[in-house]
């Protein structure tokens, strides 16, 4: 498969890249690892006139702790995120999500955490070759007025299948978006628009430079779970990220994010709240929270990523419960570690 033609730009530093973004705006696309972008360009889902390569921008890469935050450069390869001692120690859910993307040897070497977070929403009726799509009318995502995933839908129902996004949502990540004038600081809830046609609040003149995770939360533990047809290469058909904060064996705060159900990872507040004040080892409470997450997420899912909706929805409860059990075990282990 051939790529469409474009002009290739190689900024040497971030400022230069931001000026190119300011100049070329929506005609430009950012090339990091390319494992998602180049596929969509080959399928003619995108035809940018200018491709801005981020490969020389060293300032976009690296993981460090600064003040009360962990800073992860958006251009950090997934392999580095998965293998980082800092990430594995403080936010194992993110390491688990990075490890689950694509194939261990390939996408993770080139693919970046920023690219994974910003990957477009997907749909079986959209992410196909130009030839396949040429036989049908354009759907909402392609600028038309119909939806093949749900009959009569007045908007795009494409699905966010990013592993990184679901884990980062549970971990309460924030992102830094830069343009040539300044920067914006958004929570993930703000980054995602919940619109399938334009899933990200990322302006054509902006570049995602950093992902930031709050570190001032003692007693935190996390885990990520996903289910896919195959353990390698495939996108997940359901996923869950959880974050638990506990004090003296009692859960003080919980964040439960469900992936692959809506246009964005879904933060199920009610499920998290149901765990507050519960002991870490209260498995019934964990199971109940998982069922709440499933019930709420079920309203969003449509038949468009492979497995049946019924199966995917049921798996939400299974995956949330598994993730909660593992996070709870991690929290308990940490508590024992402190006691000795």
């Amino acid at each position, binding site marked *: 498969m051939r790529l469409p033609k*474009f002009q290739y730009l190689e900024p040497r530093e971030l400022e230069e890249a931001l000026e190119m973004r300011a100049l070329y705006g929506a005609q430009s696309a950012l090339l990091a690892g390319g494992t998602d972008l180049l596929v969509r360009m080959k399928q003619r889902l995108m035809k940018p006139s200018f491709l801005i390569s981020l490969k020389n921008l060293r300032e976009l890469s690296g993981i460090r702790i600064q003040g009360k935050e962990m800073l992860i450069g958006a251009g950090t390869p997934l392999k580095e995120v998965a293998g980082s001692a800092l990430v594995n120690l403080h936010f194992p859910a993110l390491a688990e999500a990075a490890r689950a993307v*694509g194939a261990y040897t*390939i996408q993770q070497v080139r693919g970046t955490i920023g690219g994974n977070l910003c990957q477009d929403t997907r749909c079986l009726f959209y992410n196909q070759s130009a030839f396949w799509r040429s036989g049908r009318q354009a759907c909402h995502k392609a600028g038309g007025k119909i939806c093949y995933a749900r009959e009569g839908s007045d908007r795009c129902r494409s699905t966010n299948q990013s592993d990184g996004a679901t884990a980062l949502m549970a971990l309460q990540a924030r992102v830094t978006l830069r343009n040539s004038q300044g920067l914006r600081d958004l929570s993930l809830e703000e980054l995602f628009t919940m619109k399938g046609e334009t899933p990200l609040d990322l302006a054509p003149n902006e570049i995602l430079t950093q992902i930031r995770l709050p570190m001032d939360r003692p007693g935190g533990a996390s885990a990520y779970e996903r289910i896919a047809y195959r353990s390698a290469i495939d996108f997940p058909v359901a996923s869950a990220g959880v974050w638990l904060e506990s004090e003296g064996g009692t859960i003080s705060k919980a964040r439960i994010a469900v992936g692959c159900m809506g246009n964005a990872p879904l933060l199920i507040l009610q499920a998290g709240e149901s765990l507050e004040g519960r002991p870490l080892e209260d498995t019934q409470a964990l199971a109940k929270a998982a069922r709440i997450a499933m019930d709420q997420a079920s309203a969003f899912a449509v038949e468009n990523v492979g497995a049946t909706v019924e199966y995917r929805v049921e798996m939400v409860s299974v995956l949330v419960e598994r993730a909660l059990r593992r996070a709870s075990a991690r929290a308990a282990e940490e508590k024992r570690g402190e006691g000795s």
Partner: protein
Amino acid sequence: MSRVPLKLKVNNEELELLVEPHWTLLEVLREELDLTGTKEGCGEGVCGACTVLLDGKPVRACLTLALEAQGCSVTTVEGLAGEKGLDPLQESFIRHGAVQCGFCTPGMIMAAKALLLENPCPQEEDIRKAISGNICRCTGYAKIVEAIAAVASQHDPAAKGSVGTLKEEPA
């Protein structure tokens, strides 16, 4: 659009080429350099048949722009055999009958090579994980895993020039 210069070291040979910006590394290897050992299967990063080493790391040549490899060292399956004959991995694939139709073989061997460069003594699980991004539609995975494991088990960390090295270290 006009062609732009690309400096590349392919299988230890320094090259200066003129390429279109939208050419992938795979297109340059196969069509400009006639290195057709690297295969195009799916063209979208799913099958792994186009796996090559870029500065010693495995990448999908079909999803790597040629210009992104500017100044890098590329190793394809053609670059494994030396004056002394085939690479131990290639010998092992033959000995174990790990080749059926052969289409996935270059990608499998390069993915395995990348693993052995990083970890000369992998466990079976590491091997399975390393080739998890490569599809063999003849489904001959068992023999492939055996072939890679056999090379790994021969490895003596003290011995020079063993499997865990390229002929010349990438820059």
